[in-house]
């Protein structure tokens, strides 16, 4: 086992009838288990580069080495069954059911029925679609977001070590896209696939990538580095322009909630407790509000002192709890949830909806402050060794 999953060696593509190569001599090592994002302006050859990996587009010259094996000349159909493929238009087969769509590659590989069936159910479950409901539906009966989930499930069907994704969330509305991105990152935490991901959206690249390749025309990498490096130390003007303004704001997308200290000692009460106990808890604490949890410890409502004046059942008092985020979400997601929900705090829950803690605006501001200090130090350090400065 090497640490590099995909090696691209001098890959070049010249389309027939053109002189200028679409991709010129692309050489890159894609590390095992990481998400590498190809990002660049339209027409830079990023999609062509991606499609040469599974040879949907045959390279004009150069080599592709997959897990130590040169696959430039192997049978393309066999190769593609080892590589998951997700495209923007999804391309679900409209004439067969969701279950059969997901079973495409297992069927090609000749798995037996029982194994395929079990795998299909498992995958639908993984991508958050109830197999009993969705297995026998047709693609047209699903929403765009659901279809893309099926697209991902289908690509994962035979458990390929490598996944190629060509703007997978490009055609989906922003809110669903954010949700799918988060779910996908959570999935990747477990799966540890090697993923090559193409997008034209730098924000998506920063969010999804363990490593980002910013590509110029002819797919020439302007910088191939971690998102942090690209934001704090852009290699050249092209990268700087492409990343654009608001690098600090973008760094909010890099910090995940689990990486910062959330408030986990806030006041909570259980729905099983009676009104007086809850009231007393609130009065005795320094908190202005109490978060009511249900039997499974899932947050349901915010209660404040005046709410107890109304004679209502506990589960109808106060305001419904909003702005839920999961620990793997970014600070930017949390901020957005707060703004959407007009709430001063975001509630952190785990994937089962269990209460973990809360996050307020101050927490976020503090972490921005911390980031700014770090980059200030970074730039000061740069300046210290700047030869121009030494001379003057």
């Amino acid at each position, binding site marked *: 086992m090497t640490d590099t999953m995909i090696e691209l060696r001098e890959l070049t593509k010249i389309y027939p009838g053109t002189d200028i190569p679409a991709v010129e001599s692309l050489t890159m090592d894609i590390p095992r288990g990481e998400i590498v994002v190809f990002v660049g302006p339209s027409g830079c050859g990023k999609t062509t580069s991606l499609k040469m990996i599974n040879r949907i587009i045959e390279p004009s010259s150069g080599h592709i080495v997959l897990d130590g094996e040169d696959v430039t000349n192997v049978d393309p159909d*066999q190769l*593609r069954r080892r590589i998951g493929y997700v495209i923007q238009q999804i391309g679900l087969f*409209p*004439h067969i059911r969701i279950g059969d769509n997901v079973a495409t590659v297992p069927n090609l590989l000749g798995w037996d029925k029982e194994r395929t069936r079990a795998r299909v159910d498992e995958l639908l479950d993984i991508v958050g679609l109830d197999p009993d409901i969705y297995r026998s539906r047709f693609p047209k009966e699903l929403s765009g977001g659901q279809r893309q989930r099926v697209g991902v499930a289908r690509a994962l069907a035979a458990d390929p070590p490598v996944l190629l994704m060509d703007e997978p969330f490009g055609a989906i509305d922003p809110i669903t896209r954010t949700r799918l991105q988060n779910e996908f990152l959570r999935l990747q935490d477990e799966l540890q696939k090697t993923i090559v991901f193409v997008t034209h959206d730098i924000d998506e690249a920063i969010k999804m990538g363990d490593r980002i390749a910013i590509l110029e025309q002819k797919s020439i990498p302007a910088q191939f580095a971690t998102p942090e490096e690209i934001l704090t130390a852009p290699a050249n003007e092209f990268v700087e322009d492409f990343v654009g303004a608001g690098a600090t704001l973008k760094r909010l997308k890099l910090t995940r909630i689990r990486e910062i200290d959330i408030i986990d000692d806030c006041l909570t009460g259980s729905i099983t407790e009676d009104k007086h106990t809850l009231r007393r808890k609130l009065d005795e604490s320094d908190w202005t509000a109490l978060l009511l949890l249900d039997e499974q410890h899932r947050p349901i409502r915010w209660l404040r002192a005046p709410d107890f004046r109304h004679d209502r059942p506990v589960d109808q008092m106060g305001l419904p709890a909003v702005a839920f985020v999961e620990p793997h979400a970014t600070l930017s997601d949390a901020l957005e949830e707060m703004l959407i929900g007009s709430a001063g705090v975001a509630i952190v829950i785990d994937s089962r909806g269990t209460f973990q803690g809360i996050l307020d605006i101050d927490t976020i501001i503090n972490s921005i402050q911390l980031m700014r200090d770090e980059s200030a130090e970074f730039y000061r350090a740069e300046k210290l060794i700047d030869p121009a400065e030494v001379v003057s």
Partner: protein
Amino acid sequence: MPVLVGAVLAVALGILAHRYRPLRTSILNLTSWFLTIPSLAFFALLIPVVGIGDTAPIIAMTFYALLPIVRNTVAGLTSVDQAIVEAAKGMGMGARARLIKIELPNAWPVILAGIRVATLLIIGITAIAALVGGGGLGQEIYSRGINRIPSPGSLEAILGGTGIIVLLAVIVDTIYLGIGRLTIPRGLRD
């Protein structure tokens, strides 16, 4: 019968025309060229080859059936969403599997519409077969109708023959609706 033979032949030609672009124009031109031959002349031309009787009309009608079916096969295959084809390819489905499992089922509604048009077209033309010794409802119109004008009953024979042909067309059309219902995958129906 001509429809069935025509359909098999035409779908094959259509796939060929779809696959190999250079062949596409020539195949489409050739089939439309057949349709421009007046049916009576076509029947007559075939008589020296296969003689008088049912054979000449059957061969001729097979050719007439070609055009609408070939056209629709090409149109149907071309209209299949390229994303679907690319997805299939990207998952390692070979060219033949793609054609049979993905492209043809998705093009089927359009192909079937072509077969339906071909059938209706042929029902109309069949009547003329009577002139070259073929059987069928044409006999009613020509032998007992037009040829015997103005003897009594000739008009009734013409009207009767025509009426039955129209009725037949309507019935066949309905049958096609049923075939469509049975053979078009549910995921493709509106």
